[in-house]
C-alpha cells in the first residue's frame, strides 16, 4: 500500500495513519473514522489554548528512578507453553508467511 505523508495539521489522513498502524480498513470504515476523528481532534485541540512553554512533560503518574534488579537468570515460560497459543507453529518456532523469495 502506498500512502504519502500528509502535512496538514488540521486534518487527519485516515488512510495513511491506518497504514502506519497496520490496519487494513474497508472504504466505508475510512469514511466513518475520517468524520469521527476530525470531530474528536477538533475537540482535543483545546489544549493548544494553554501556554505550555517552560512546563515539563509528565510521562508517568509516579516518577520513578531507574528500577534495576539483580542480573540473574530466572525461569520464564517454557517453550511449549509459550507456543501453545500460536495460530501456527512448527517444531519449536512460530510460523509466518514467507518473508523473502
Amino acid at each position, binding site marked *: 500500500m502506498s500512502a504519502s505523508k500528509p502535512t496538514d495539521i488540521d486534518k487527519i489522513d485516515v488512510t495513511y495513519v491506518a497504514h502506519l498502524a*497496520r490496519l487494513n480498513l474497508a472504504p466505508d470504515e475510512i469514511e466513518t473514522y475520517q468524520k469521527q476523528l476530525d470531530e474528536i481532534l477538533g475537540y482535543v485541540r483545546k489544549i493548544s489554548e494553554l501556554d505550555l512553554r517552560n512546563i515539563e512533560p509528565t510521562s*508517568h503518574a509516579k516518577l520513578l528512578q531507574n528500577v534495576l534488579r539483580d542480573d540473574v537468570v530466572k525461569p520464564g515460560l517454557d517453550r511449549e507453553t509459550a507456543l501453545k497459543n500460536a495460530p501456527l507453529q512448527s517444531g519449536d518456532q512460530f510460523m509466518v508467511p514467507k518473508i523473502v523469495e
Partner: protein
Amino acid sequence: MPLNLNNMTVREALAMMQSRQCTSEELVCDLLDVIKERDKEICAYLGVDGEYALAQARAADLSRSKGGEGRLLGVPIAIKDVLNVKDQPCTCASKILQGYVSPYDATAVARLRAEGAVFLGRTNMDEFAMGSTTENSAYKVTHNPWNHDHVPGGSSGGSAAAVAAGEAIAALGSDTGGSIRQPAAFCGCVGLKPSYGRVSRWGLTAYASSLDQIGPLTKDVADAALLLQIMAGRDELDSSSVDEPVPDYDAYLKKDLKGFRIGLPREYSTKGMDADVEKAVRNAVEQCRGLGAEIVDISLPHTEYAISTYYIIATAEASANLARFDGVRYGLRADGAEDPIDMYGKSRAQGFGPEVKRRIILGTYVLSSGFYDAYYLSAQKVRTLIRGDFEKAFKTCDALITPVSPTPAYRLGEKTGDPLQMYLGDIFTVTANLAGICGLSIPCGLTKTNLPIGLQILGPAFKEENIIRAGYAFESERGRFPMKG
C-alpha cells in the same frame, strides 16, 4: 434448598464459612444457580467455568477443615476478562484473542489465590477496556441490573453488573479513565481505583500503561479495603509498582470524620449535570459534614483540559500496546495473507472492533512524525498541570468529593453513534488516572427513575486509607444500599 448466600459480602461469607454455617461449595453452587437464572438477561459473564470453581471451592473447604486460614479462603470472586487467570481463557472481550488461554496468573490474581479465593468466571467488558458502557464487547451486551434498558457502564461493566445482581460476591476490574468507578456508580456498588503503582499490573492486558490500575468492585467499602490490602504492594514483575508501605486499612474503618478535611472542586459542577445526581452528591456532602468533616472549597483549574489530555495520552499508549496483536504469537490470524505485512493488516482488521480501531488510529496519529509535539508532547505537559492542581488541593484537604459521572446510566445505544459525546461523560474520572491518585466510587442515592448515583471520593497518591475512611464513614451513615439481586 436456596440459601441466598449470593447476596453476602466477602466478610459475611467468610464469617459464615468460619462458623461452619455454610461451605464454599454451597456458596459456589448458590452463585452458579443464580448466574444460570439471571445471567441470560444481565449477560455479566463471558465465561463461567463451574467445574473449575467447584474444584477450587472443595479444595478451600478441605483446607478449612484442616485448619487452613487464607484471608479469602473459599470466597468466590469474578475477574474482568482483561486479567490473566492461569489455564483459563482471556479474551479482553475481543475477537482477536478468541481461544487464548492464559499461561500464568496475573499478580493481583495470584495474591488473591494465595489467600484461598475461588475464581468463578470472566466478566464482560468493553473490548480492551476501551469504552464507558460495555457495549464495545465483541461478544455480548451487558444490561444494567437496575433497568435492563440501560448500560452497566464500562469498561468493567460485567464486574459491576455481576456484583450488583448478586451474581458474584466481589469482582476485580481495571481502571484507566474511570473503568472501575463509573460502572460501580451506574450499577450501585463500590469500586476502588488504587493510586498508580499501588497494585502490580503484571498479567493485566495493557491498554494505557501509565494510567492502568487494577482494583476491586464490591458490595461495601470494608470489602474493597480487604481486597486492596491483599493485592497492594511492590511486585518485582512490574517495575512500576511502588515499594511504599501498605497500611492496615481496617484501622481506618471508623464511623466519624472528625478533623477530616473534604474539598469540593468548584470546576466539577458542569453544565448538563443531572439534577438528581447533583442533589444526591450535595446531600452526601452534608452527611459528611454531620460526621464531623470540615468542608472546603478548592479549585482544579485545568479540569476542562482533562478529556483532551486523557484521549491523547491513552490512545497513544494504546496504539503502542496493541501493536503486539499481529497474528504471530497468539490470537487471530487472518487467512490468505500474501506476506507478513499483509497478515498483520488483515488480522488486525478482522480481530479488532470499531472502538479499538478508532483509538489505535487516533493514538498512531498523535504520535506520528509532524504531529507529536502538537498533540502527545503537549498533552504530557497538560498532565503536569493537572497533577499540580491536585497536589495543591491536597495541601488543604484529605480527600475530595465529586460525582462519579454527570449522569446516571445511559440508555443502551444512546451514545454509540457519537464517540465524542461518550468520551465527554468521563470528565470526573479521567483526572485521577492522569494525576496517579486514588479514587473510590460509592452509591449515594437513586434517581427519580430508580437508577443508582455514585459519589466519588478522591485521595492523594498512596493515601488509600483516606478514601477508605471517608467512604466507610459515609456508608455507615447512609445504611445498606439495596441490591438488585
